[in-house]
């Protein structure tokens, strides 16, 4: 009882976090975020350890090579979309009939197609169609789904029930079938295909964001915000949304990969961009007739799609882990 409060805080030890609060009876309140490793709480940084270099070393050694590779793939794909002419001198649309169906070589890394167009150039120039399509699709799903989910989660009651059933219906229809029906309503084209894929992913976003909002709404700090006089919109924007978005962002990265795949699927089926647009799905579809003789026409663009999708998934996984 002796120390004046003005000479404070040196005495407060590091976080008593891992310890189950000696709270009421058998009910133990423990913050969820605290790892349940007994003894780990005893690992306080040593007072004599210099903090700054340690932090840097920790950051450097925290870098995972597979994640760096994933980001490199995505950055390369975006660069293809933005400045394709830096990556290839060939024209993606004009072909040289004399050089048709050539196997991959130094001159044509991915080979050439049936009318002598450089396949590598077509893949590079096609990135903008596939990526912007995926971007539009994810944006549609993210905005639409999160809006529905946040409304359902924060208002509850009848709104929640109605939105919940709509989402159920969306989930009940196979994604590809749903996209095809929407394209038939909207008409063919890259953008419409992207919107169709996006609408197909609204349900997943709505489900996830609703459950996150419901979880965060029960947190003490949300009640504390109401307790300090905040109104519902302020609480939603200031506390609930920022704390529930991490998982949604991770899903967005995952959906980005899925959307590239879905848009390519639609392109392959002929519901996306019309020829001669070098869209990735369309490239694979065009190579279909030559599978027996010219494997590179399907395999190489296919590999590009697979690698980009895997990279997006890897990044999504890392985002999800860092919550």
């Amino acid at each position, binding site marked *: 009882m002796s120390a004046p409060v003005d000479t404070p805080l040196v005495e407060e*030890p590091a976080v008593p976090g891992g310890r189950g609060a000696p709270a009421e*009876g058998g009910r*133990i309140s423990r913050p969820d975020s605290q790892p349940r490793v007994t*003894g780990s709480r*005893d690992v306080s940084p040593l007072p004599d350890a210099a903090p700054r270099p*340690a932090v840097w070393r*920790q950051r450097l050694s925290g870098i995972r090579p597979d994640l760096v590779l994933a980001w490199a793939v995505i950055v390369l794909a975006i660069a293809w979309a933005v400045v394709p002419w830096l990556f290839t001198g060939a024209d993606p649309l004009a072909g040289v009939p004399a050089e048709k169906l050539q196997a991959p070589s130094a001159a044509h890394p991915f080979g050439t197609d049936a009318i002598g167009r450089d396949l590598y150039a077509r893949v590079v120039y096609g990135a903008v169609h596939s990526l912007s399509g995926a971007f539009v699709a994810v944006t549609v799903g993210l905005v639409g789904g999160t809006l529905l989910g946040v409304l359902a989660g924060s208002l509850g009651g009848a709104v929640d029930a109605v939105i919940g059933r709509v989402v159920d219906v969306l989930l009940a229809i196979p994604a590809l079938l749903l996209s095809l029906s929407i394209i038939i309503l909207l008409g063919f084209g890259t953008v419409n295909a992207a919107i169709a894929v996006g609408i197909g992913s609204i349900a997943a976003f709505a489900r996830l964001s609703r459950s996150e909002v419901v979880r965060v709404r029960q947190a003490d700090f949300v009640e*504390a915000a109401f307790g300090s*006089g905040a109104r519902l919109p302020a609480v939603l924007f200031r506390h609930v949304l920022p704390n529930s978005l991490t998982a949604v962002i991770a899903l967005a990265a995952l959906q980005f990969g899925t959307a590239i795949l879905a848009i390519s699927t639609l392109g392959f089926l002929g519901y996306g961009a019309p020829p001669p647009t070098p869209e990735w799905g369309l490239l694979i579809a065009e190579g279909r007739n030559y599978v027996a003789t010219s494997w590179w026409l399907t395999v190489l663009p296919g590999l590009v799609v697979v690698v980009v999708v895997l990279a997006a998934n890897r990044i999504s996984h890392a985002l999800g882990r860092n919550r």
Partner: protein
Amino acid sequence: MTALLELEHLDVAYRTSAGPSRVVHDVSFDVARGEVVALVGESGSGKTTTASAVLGLLPAGGAVEGGGIRLSGTDISGWSDRRLQAVRGVRIGYIPQDPVSSLNPVRPIGVQLGEAFRIHRRGDRRDVRRRVLELLDRVGIDDPALRARQYPHELSGGMRQRVLIASAVALEPELVIADEPTSALDVTVQRRILDLIDELRREHGTAVLLVTHDLGVAAERAERVVVMQHGRIVEQGAIGALLDDPREAYTRRLLADAPGLEEPEFRRPRPPVYLRDASVAAAENPFVLEASGLVKAYATKRGAEPFRAVDDVSFNVVRGTTHAIVGESGSGKTTTARIVTRFVSPDAGTVRLGDTDVTALTGAARREFRRRVQLVYQNPFASLDPRHTVADLVAEPLRNFGIGDRRSRAETARRLIDRVALPSHLAGHRPRELSGGQRQRVAIARALALEPELVVLDEAVSALDVTVQARILELLEQLQGELGLSYLFISHDLAVVARISHSVSVMRRGRVVESGPTEQVFRSPQHEYTRELLDAVPRRKVTA
């Protein structure tokens, strides 16, 4: 005769990405047969790590770097997991801290208890079953045959801790390591559990290494105490000598901070100096809060009687004083706090704040009411938004009510941060970079931002270590003196209540069983339950 357990210059380190970080330095002590030794320290002092090292159960990345652990003269520090299996459970029993997460939720407790016998191949099936029932009976669980078939969630916290004790002593080990065995329990349950450990020790001559942050528990139960800080032993010795004549400043501080070790000075309300005129003083409403006849019932199963969490509760808070509500879990004290702060509506009864009835407020009026009453939560880890900075958190109430502009709010936040004695450079930090005590200071600063008349503190210091707890209580007292605040202090800890409150209501099963000035209730308790609660507070053993 050699000691049962000897630790010699033990060093433990964790591998981190920034190189090994040593958390236990040169720790030496021993435990004789049948002796109770307490390992005392605040969180981060290395006491749990030391205990885990003895069991060979350090978390991944932890390793004994030097020194030795000798059990009856044999060094076991370098032993493999396989060799240690012959020691764990058989020669050293372990009682974990957390009875909720330490039992497997999907298996009946009888099966879990029987595991110890099966792993070490003691007896056949029928034999194991008989011994499990004996054990359950031994640790004071009634109707063992029924309980053995039940799952952990069907038992109370105290009963689960008994099951864990049963499994620790199943094979009659020579040493039991109890890691904060009662930190998560109510005082009366804590007392019964500690009694049980004592009793088992007397009967079987088992030695106990009691790891605790509460010097009160150590003083009551242990024969010798080892005080740790920053991974080093500060002081060790017989309990009596240590309490009477602590040599180190840190031990003295722990002693001063431990609630309940000595009778506190009871607080009496100071006469308000500014009211000199007796008639004016008499006309003034002395109460900041009057709660009368509060009832809150929750529907249980259909057809069953609704459960009355709060049943006809009345109390008053005199302006400028602290009123405490004490009770165990399930006594309805938190529900009462939530009714007063208007997060829950009562089924009957009224709450008057000053001269206004606030019971039925909704919408805008209730929001306006929030300016006058603020709540501080038990868990500072959950009550602060992890994404906001300290300055933002403290200024948020002002922003909500549109008080001042951005700059004046920042100025007010700075003043409040200073007021709760937080270093000003923390203003830009986020809660996760702060310690538990610092977070609770932030929560208090936020509660003060609107200059409320009443601050409701719901177990606000229960999750903190004794030393941090003592600092926060000092802060609360100081703020009350300077700002004329009134507190409604909800707690299960009588020792803390005795230190902070002017008046007290004791609650049990939704009812107030006794109330009055703190000194009177503590000195001459009228109700049997109050006496039981008071007896359960860990105190120094009276040496005969």
